[in-house]
Every structure is written in structure tokens, then in C-alpha cells.
């Protein structure tokens, strides 16, 4: 078994990710190794200050969604026509919209919804896609061909159009936005994991595992899949921002989250008409938060990519 583990580490080294073990429970000298990778983590992030800024900014938005409601006295969904379309002031930090709802409050509650959508959608897509790709790669030949052509067909659609078609068929709702995002994202993860496994399948540690009597299924889920996950983490972190952008676009078009729920894209669309008459704030602030969120999660994702794949630095 020692040979086996060394092989594995070498394979990881070839892929340039030896310092970050994707499944620490399998290394017996776990503690000092994890310490090592932690130092490496800090080292990389010190070199990549933008990623740190992105991470902090992301943390701020998450915290805002979690405890932000404590800082506001207004309801996110109750309209108050007496104070409609007020510009930003001391009482309404980001002004109010045409329905008299406090935009700051709605932006905070929207952070909850958007983060929820993105997190669930990305995790589901990554899991389903990884399993799909793993099956396709491992069982190969005809099944692989059919499964991959099927993905080709999905990816032939411009992603927003596929999303629109599914959203239109399912009807607009929060749950359906998540389904749309999962369907649109699965092919990417499937391809990623498939190519990783095709590469790893030839590695000697797989032969060794087979020789000591592991079944195909066990080799697949205990050896191949865990070893091919680090690019999936990177992809997922880069995918979160894109998913929020897509969810916001769907809601903006009226095919996503429905009023009066607070959602950033929906809020921009509600403020769109005010923009032409000069009330800039009701569309400006929710859009600004989409931008901030996507920007910071992209920065963090780029940083993670550097950690997991030093060749791309």
C-alpha cells in the first residue's frame, strides 16, 4: 500500500497540485502535511492580493445576507406609497423604489436569495456533472460516445437561450431558476471530470488498486473520482459568480424570481423605468451588488486556481 500511495502523490505532483491534498483522510501523516499546505495557501495568497480582497469582499456580502437584517427597520416586501421614489438619505440609505420599499433592506434580503440560488445550483451541478463525467469516462466506448454527444447537443445552445427556454417551459419561480442553472452548468463539470479521469485511468496506481482486488465501482468512486476533484473546486468557485449573473438575468427578463421577492436582477428591472426619468438609485444599487459579488467571487476563484494549478500562474 505504501507504493500505491507514493504513486498517487506522484500523479498529483504531475498535475501540479501535490501540496493540496483533495482527501486528507487518506494520508496518514495528515497533520504536518495539512500544516504545510496551509503555509503554502498563505504564501500563494500573499502573492495574490487581489484574491484576498475578493475573499474579504465575498465574506462581507455573505455576512450582510446573514446578519444584515438586524441593521434595518424596514420590511423587504411591504410597500409604503407615502415614501415612494425617495433619493438616498439618512433614513433610506439607498433611497426607495417606486413602491416605496427601502432599497437597502431589499438589497440585503436579496443577497440571501441570490447566494442561496448560486450555492445550491453550483453544488448540485458539480455533483451531478462529476458523476456523469466519471461514468462516461470509466465505462468508455459506446456509452461514452452517446453521453458525450448528448452533452454536445446541450452545449450547442447559447447558455442563456437554453436557460430561457427551460425557464419558460417550467414557469418562473425560484426553484426553477435553480433547475435551469444546474442543467446549464452540468456539461462543463462532466467534461472536466471526464478528461481528468481519462488521464488518471492510465496511472499505475489504478493498476495497483485493481491488482489488490478492488472492484471497478470502488476504483471509480474511491480512487479516480476523489483524485480528479481539485479542478472541479476551482471551476465551482469561478462558477458561483456566473450563476448569480445568470439568475439575475433570468429574473430581469421576468423568467426567474417573481415580485415582490427581493432579488438583485429583478430589482434592477423594477428600477429600469425610473432610470429614464432620472431616478437612478433604484436600479443602481442592486446592480452594483451583482457587480461586486461577481467580481469578488471571480477574484477568489482566480486565486484558488493559482493554488491548485501553479502552471497557470
Amino acid at each position, binding site marked *: 500500500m505504501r507504493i500505491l500511495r507514493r504513486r498517487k502523490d506522484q500523479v498529483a505532483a504531475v498535475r501540479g497540485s501535490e501540496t493540496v491534498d483533495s482527501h486528507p483522510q487518506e494520508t496518514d501523516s495528515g497533520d504536518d502535511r495539512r500544516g504545510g499546505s496551509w503555509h503554502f495557501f498563505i504564501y500563494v495568497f500573499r502573492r495574490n492580493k487581489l484574491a484576498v480582497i475578493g475573499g474579504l469582499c465575498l465574506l462581507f456580502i455573505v455576512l450582510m445576507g446573514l446578519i444584515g437584517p438586524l441593521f434595518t427597520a424596514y420590511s423587504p416586501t411591504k410597500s409604503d406609497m407615502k415614501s415612494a421614489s425617495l433619493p438616498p438619505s439618512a433614513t433610506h440609505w439607498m433611497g426607495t423604489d417606486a413602491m416605496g420599499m427601502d432599497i437597502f433592506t431589499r438589497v440585503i434580503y436579496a443577497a440571501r436569495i441570490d447566494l442561496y440560488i448560486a450555492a445550491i445550483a453550483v453544488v448540485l451541478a458539480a455533483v451531478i456533472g462529476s458523476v456523469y463525467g466519471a461514468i462516461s469516462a470509466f465505462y468508455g466506448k459506446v456509452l461514452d460516445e452517446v453521453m458525450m454527444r*448528448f452533452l454536445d447537443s446541450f452545449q450547442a445552445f447559447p447558455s442563456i437561450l437554453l436557460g430561457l*427556454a427551460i425557464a419558460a417551459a417550467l414557469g418562473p419561480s425560484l426553484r426553477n431558476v435553480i433547475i435551469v442553472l444546474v442543467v446549464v452548468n452540468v456539461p462543463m463539470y462532466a467534461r472536466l471530470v471526464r478528461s481528468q479521469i481519462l488521464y488518471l485511468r492510465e496511472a499505475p496506481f489504478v493498476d495497483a488498486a485493481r491488482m489488490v482486488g478492488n472492484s471497478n465501482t470502488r476504483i471509480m468512486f474511491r480512487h479516480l473520482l476523489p483524485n480528479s476533484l481539485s479542478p472541479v473546486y476551482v471551476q465551482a468557485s469561478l462558477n458561483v459568480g456566473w450563476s448569480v449573473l445568470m439568475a439575475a*438575468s433570468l429574473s430581469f427578463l421576468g423568467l426567474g424570481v417573481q415580485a415582490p421577492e427581493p432579488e438583485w436582477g429583478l430589482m434592477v428591472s423594477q428600477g429600469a423605468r425610473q432610470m429614464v426619468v432620472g431616478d437612478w438609485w433604484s436600479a443602481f444599487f442592486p446592480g452594483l451588488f451583482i457587480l461586486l459579488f461577481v467580481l469578488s467571487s471571480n477574484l477568489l476563484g482566480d486565486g484558488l486556481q493559482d493554488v491548485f494549478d501553479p502552471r497557470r500562474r
Partner: protein
Amino acid sequence: MKTALFILRRLLLMIPIVFGVLVITFIIGRIIPADPVALLVGQEDDRATVERVRQELGLDQPLWTQFYVYIRNFARGDFGMCWSTRNPVVKDLAVFLPATIELVLVSMFFCIVLAVPLGVYAAVRKDTLGDHVSRVVSLFGVAIPSFWLGLLLIFVFFYLLRWAPPPMGRIGFRTSIDRVTGFYLVDSLLAGDLKAFGQTLSYLVLPVAAISLRKLAQLTRLVRSTMIEALSSDYIQTARSHGLRNRLINYRLAFKNASLPPITQIADMFGDLVGGAVVIELVFAWPGAGRWAVTSALAGDFAPIQAFAVICAVVRVITFLITDIMYAVIDKRIEY
């Protein structure tokens, strides 16, 4: 000969993909909605009407027959009816599609013309101020929601500065252009009407800017990174030591070899922009196919978005084929 065989094989490979595209849209359109009839006739109609509509749509047939009819109709160019405009989908597409394609092509032109020199510049001046500025712009360009950018542009250039025309369509109410191709830039030139041409351009500026920033950012980054790689290779060093001019080295030698990944991205761009245009068309009330498909879908009418999605997918499959062939033409090392 080899290349011909390769093209033939790629053409054959298109068939299962296009078939898959049709299967997917069929599944989305016929199986997912609980009851397409209810979507069409509404809740309050009586049972007889529902039954009649069901038969008219062929929904009483088994699924296989429905799928066969679906594919046969598509092959004949029959995409069904758009109930909200009461026209056949094909007729509506002929009206709305040119508006979208004009927007997308102008955006692509704008992207390529700006991104290539910017990317080359950032690569040649790596780690200087210009490079850093281009990096920051790219980071923002990828993260900014295009519909929001569109609204900001409207606010600044229409509301505050009054430079841009109102965000309401392709041309002013009082101007009319004889419809020949549906591309107003072409049609106005055909009519020799330079004023209308200028006005069309002025209506294009803001939506084009809003759509293309994201693609511009991505393409600039890609050109930069492939250029850096090409510039560090040996043959460039040799060319430099022979005293060739920088301009020649950058564009004729390095960029030619760095151009393959950007070409793939440009091929992708068409489909992405057509998709992205949907959102911008709504912001600028642009009478394009995306806006038509979305407004129909919101009214419970599925045929337009189905047809639009299928057409875009097929166009994309064809552009991928063309890119593959272009690869073979540009990079002589690739053999098939």
C-alpha cells in the same frame, strides 16, 4: 484529400448533435409543461375547446408520432405559429432576426477591432501601467451585468448628457427605411440615405457598448495571454536578433501563431452574443428576435423561443465546423 475526408467526417458528426438539439427542445416544449393546452387556451375554457385544441396540436397522438411530426415540420421550415402576433413563426423570424443579427455583427466587429490591438499591446507592454489598466477593465468587464450597464449608459448619455437617442428601438419614429434586407445599415446605404445611416449608427452605439464589454474583456485577456506565450518562443528571439521591426514581429510572426485560441473564442462569440442580446434588446426596446421570443414566452407562447433556440444551436454547430476547418488552414502542423 485528407482534409476533404476530415470535413466529411465532421459533417457526419453534426447529424447526431443536431438530432440531440431537436430532442432537447422537444422534451423541453412537450414534456416539461404539465399541459401545453392549458397554457394556450387559459383556465376558464370548456372541455370541448380544450379537446379540440389538443387534437389540432396533435397532442392526442403517441409521443413518438409527435416527435416525428415535430422533426418533419422543422425539416420543412415550419416552426409553428406564434399566437401572440398571430403569424407563422418563420414570418416573424424574418422580421425580427435581422435586427438581432445586425446588433450582434456590429458588436462582434467592435470587439475584434478593439480587443486584438489592446491584447497585443498589453502583451508587449507586459506589467506596465497600460497592462494593469487593461487587466482591471477586463475584471470589471466580465463581472458587470450587461443589462445594468445598459441602464447606466442610458442614464448618463440619454438622461444626463442628452447625447444618445432615446432607448426605444433601432431608429427614430419619423425616419423610415425601405425594407430590403432588414439590416438598416445596409438598407439605408442601398437607398442612398446617409442621414438614416447615421441615425441607425447612433441608435446602435449604446446597445453595442453594453453587449460587447464582456466579450471585449474576455477576448483581450485571451489575446494577451496567447501573445505572451508566442512572444517568449525561440523563433521570435531569432527574428529579433535578425533585427526585424517590432511591428512585423508582433503582428506578422507572433500574432499569427497566437491567433488560434482567439479564433475559437470569436466563433463562440456569435452564439453568446445572440444569447446576450436578449437582455439588451429588452433594455433598449430593440425589436429583435430575443425580445420577441421572451415576450411571447411570458405570454405562455413557447414556439418562438423554441424555434429561436434551435436556430441558434444549429448556427453554432456550423460555426464550430468552420472554426475547425480554419484551424487546418491557418496551422499547417495540424493533420487529420
